């Protein structure tokens, strides 16, 4: 049985699961649907849904969960184009850098939309990050738990009938469903894909030092009540031809600031995070055997902007890029001996990647990609805990 797709770079062991065929894989196969779907008809389907929503809603029509990256700009621009009145909901992950806060604030002011930034209890949050790193080699699980549940709580409490997400990662990466399935947000999908089967109850286990009352928003609402209240979540990637690099490159027109990235050519996705392409990327490598660059390369292979051979070479180059863990360790108040322990036990075998990020030597990407890369900025301040100049 084949273990690696012969069209892209994904392996059967992909964390979302992958079916490998004689030619391609479930992800490549699903991507191919994009060229035969009548997208105008798909948009009509969405507009019909929206008519029903607008008839039901009394204030905001929808909640749009954001982190402030380029995809969020695209989603908000589409939501407004569709005539919806959105409430933008963001969860502070306490990992943003100056570019992240600029992009989030600019998103709200440029599109002139109402917003709600939730700042979870930072002490509980840090405890959960610590537990998540220790038990699951993952530092974003607490944030992902909140990001995928808090907006749902808001929608339910404020009787906002629709939640609009950007892409469905499980469809885009491994083709878990067909675009024709029009899969909606669900508790199962959240646990299986967004949280890698580790919801907050699994995360804390039964020896937690956390008061369960502090975890309410980390948990998904009761689905019976949610479905009775009529709240549902849809993914825009089921209704629009989804091409992240192309659509994200146009977001600079709205004031989005791309960030220089030494771990990938993609300067748009998850821009503004102090950990995403650093410690999180290192942990991803440990858990899954590959870094974020592979997701980007696979996406570009499928969009025909790079060949599989070129992508393989680029992956090996980007895989050498250094990851700086010192900022995160300071943020988590890890002592010097703690850092040594982490390097010795947690990051064993990955020591060669830990270091200070340096300006990449000029890595050549194919022209079809470089044409979509706008000028990008350097980060000046990492781990800006709150967006209004407050640090703890």
């Amino acid at each position, binding site marked *: 049985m084949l273990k690696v797709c012969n069209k892209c770079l994904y392996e059967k062991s992909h964390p979302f*699961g992958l*079916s490998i065929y004689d030619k391609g894989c479930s992800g490549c196969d*699903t991507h191919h649907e994009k060229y035969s779907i009548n997208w105008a008809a798909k948009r009509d389907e969405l507009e019909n849904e929206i008519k029903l929503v607008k008839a039901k809603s009394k204030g905001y029509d929808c909640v749009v969960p954001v982190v402030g990256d380029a995809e969020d700009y695209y989603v908000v621009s589409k939501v407004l184009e569709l005539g919806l009145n959105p409430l933008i909901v963001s969860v502070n992950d306490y990992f943003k850098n100056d570019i992240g806060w600029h992009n989030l604030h600019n998103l709200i002011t440029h599109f002139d939309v109402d917003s709600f930034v939730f700042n979870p209890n930072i002490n509980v949050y840090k405890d959960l990050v610590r537990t998540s790193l220790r038990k699951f080699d993952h530092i974003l699980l607490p944030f992902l738990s909140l990001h995928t549940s808090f907006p749902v709580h808001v929608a339910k409490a404020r009787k906002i009938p629709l939640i609009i997400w950007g892409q469905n990662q499980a469809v885009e990466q491994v083709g*878990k469903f067909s675009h024709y399935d029009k899969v909606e947000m*669900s508790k199962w999908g959240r646990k*299986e894909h967004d949280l890698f089967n580790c919801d907050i109850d699994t995360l804390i286990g039964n020896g937690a030092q956390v008061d369960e009352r502090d975890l309410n928003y980390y948990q998904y609402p009761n689905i019976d009540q*949610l479905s009775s209240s009529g709240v549902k979540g849809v993914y825009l990637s089921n209704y629009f031809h989804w091409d992240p690099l192309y659509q994200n490159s146009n977001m600079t027109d709205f004031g989005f600031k791309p960030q220089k990235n030494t771990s990938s050519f993609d300067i748009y996705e998850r821009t503004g995070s102090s950990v995403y392409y650093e410690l999180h990327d290192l942990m991803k490598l440990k858990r899954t055997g590959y870094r974020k660059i592979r997701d980007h390369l696979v996406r570009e292979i499928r969009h025909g902007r790079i060949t599989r051979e070129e992508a393989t070479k680029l992956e090996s180059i980007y895989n050498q890029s250094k990851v700086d863990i010192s900022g995160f360790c300071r943020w988590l108040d890890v002592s010097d001996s703690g850092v040594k322990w982490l390097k010795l036990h947690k990051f064993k075998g990955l020591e060669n990647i830990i270091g200070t990020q340096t300006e990449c030597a000029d890595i050549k990407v194919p022209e079809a990609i470089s044409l979509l890369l706008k000028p990008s900025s350097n980060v000046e301040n990492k781990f800006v805990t709150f967006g209004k100049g407050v640090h703890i």
Partner: protein
Amino acid sequence: MRIGATVLLIDGQCYQSYGWLKMRPLGCLEHVIEILDEYQCDEISIIRPVRYGDSLVSLAQDLAVLKNINTMTPLSFGGGLRSKESLQMLGDSPVERLVFSSAFLNKDATLIKHAVDLFGHQAIQCLLPCKMEDGRLMVYACDKGEFILSENVDFDFIDKWANEIIYHDVLNEGLNNAFDFTLLDNSIFHHSRIIISGGIGHANIKIANEKLCASVLIDNKVLHKECSIKGYRNA
């Protein structure tokens, strides 16, 4: 009429099948069952899509996953149940009903009688993966990996030994409202013993209800929407 769901199990992981050709990965069986339980599904049919041969080792691996399941929903299990040894292995699994296909097509009365002795007649279901081709019913023989004409199937044998018969539309699985009801046209079985599966949607459920079918098994669609079963129940 019962509203159930079908889940495919391969190497301990769940999959969805589209048109009998393409498999899509679904994920962890335990979590799928957990959520279907929460959706208040009436029954869950866990099928190992075994084509051609099978091994007891592979069956044992899948059963090990199955044995960890905690659910209040009745489970049917099938795929690769081709010997007395395979039936013995089901002893401590949370399985309520057994699904046989090859055993019925091969008229393996000894095996089925053994299953009846172990689980009772009410637990025996016959799965007929089928399609219409040029107006003729074709049934997929899993152990041979090919479709055979329905003339070569002994429906009286099935009638005698099976409590319920699952007509699974292989061409339309994964689609919405696409179940081909002509598959049931010349069926000798009373509809109260028939379960339909493959491409089931709301409109199909309405028809199945009118036909007084025993149950419908929703394939992939069941996880595409939150609390989907409630919607199907109100179809």
